[in-house]
């Protein structure tokens, strides 16, 4: 028989999470507790669009519950595709979504792009991603349980350029690993809310290519004009 108290608590927790406007990504604590690995990924494209995916590895016993918990993960996107892999020892469940445009401003999440229009005299385009990640707990004792069991959410962010700075606040129990355009946060589920800041820069090769072409043409025209001017100069006999 289903536990009506648990469902009520879950509903309350979801309503609380929805009302928390300061959060951008909210992960149900039930999903973290009952899965062996939970990986949330965000791939930010140069044009400001993004691909969001969640992958959960859980015991086959939770095969029926994992899709529901995954559906409750809020990340400012309606989950689109879902695919699962049934293995002998575990059950892998994935969902993904395409976000047409990440929010440019806001407390919960903001992607700031400093491109040619914003800063025309730089060689690099800079991207700054700010996001608040939280968990929807079922009980007040959940943070303590998360600390005792050392539960964490793996959050992978792929930026459009090389990552120059990546921080998580508060950093207690969490870790950050940076490799090229990718940064992997291991966020402690006991912390409640955590703010992520990632900065990346990318060479403006297209802009530089056009500039180089324009400069080459100007030099070519100047050389032709100079040669013509020298040719028409009167010479001493």
């Amino acid at each position, binding site marked *: 028989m289903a536990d009506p108290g648990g469902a009520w608590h879950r509903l309350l927790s979801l309503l609380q999470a929805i009302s928390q406007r300061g959060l951008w990504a909210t992960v149900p604590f039930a999903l973290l507790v009952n899965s062996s690995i939970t990986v949330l990924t965000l791939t930010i*494209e*140069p*044009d400001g*669009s993004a*691909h969001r995916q969640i992958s959960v590895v859980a015991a086959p016993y939770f095969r029926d519950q994992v899709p529901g918990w995954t559906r409750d993960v809020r990340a400012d996107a309606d989950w*689109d*595709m879902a695919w699962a892999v049934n293995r002998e020892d575990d059950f892998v469940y994935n969902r993904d979504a*395409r976000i047409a445009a990440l929010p440019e401003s806001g407390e919960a999440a903001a992607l700031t792009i400093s491109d040619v229009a914003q800063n025309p005299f730089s060689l690099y385009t800079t991207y700054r991603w700010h996001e608040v990640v939280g968990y929807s707990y079922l009980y007040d004792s959940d943070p303590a349980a998360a600390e005792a069991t050392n539960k964490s959410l793996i959050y992978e962010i792929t930026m459009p350029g090389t990552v120059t700075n990546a921080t998580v606040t508060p950093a207690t129990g969490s870790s950050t690993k940076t490799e090229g355009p990718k940064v992997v946060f291991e966020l402690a589920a006991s912390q409640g809310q955590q703010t992520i800041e990632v900065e990346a820069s990318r060479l403006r090769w*297209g*802009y530089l*290519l*056009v500039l180089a*072409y*324009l400069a080459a*043409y100007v030099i*070519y025209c100047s050389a032709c004009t100079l040669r013509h001017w020298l040719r028409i100069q009167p010479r001493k006999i």
Partner: protein
Amino acid sequence: MTDDDLDLDLDLGPETPPVTPRARPTTREAPKSGVPSAKVMAERKPGVLSRVGSSVSGQLSHISRPNWSFRNFLIVLAVLVSLVVLAENWAAVRISFLGLRLELPKALAFLLNIILGGALTWFWLRRGVAAREE
């Protein structure tokens, strides 16, 4: 040495066929009018690579050095800017239709739109011309 000895040496000498100048083998016969052909083929048949190379070099020899005029400058600039726009918008977009999903780069979707629009317009105009001719 007497004259007889000289005759003996001539008789015992090795009999070698008279050396006559031989023409190189040609694949094409000389014209019957008796005028020798100016073209002489190589002894070995040229390979595939050398034939391709010669045809390509023949084609390339027709290309003259482009003049970097203002018009050409604008054409190359337009091509360059178009390529940069396509490369900068290579992020994937998802197109859903009746439960089917297709994911392709935004730039490619943009190009497909242009090609489809052009093809539809061409068919529409062609249909109008055909109707008028009838």
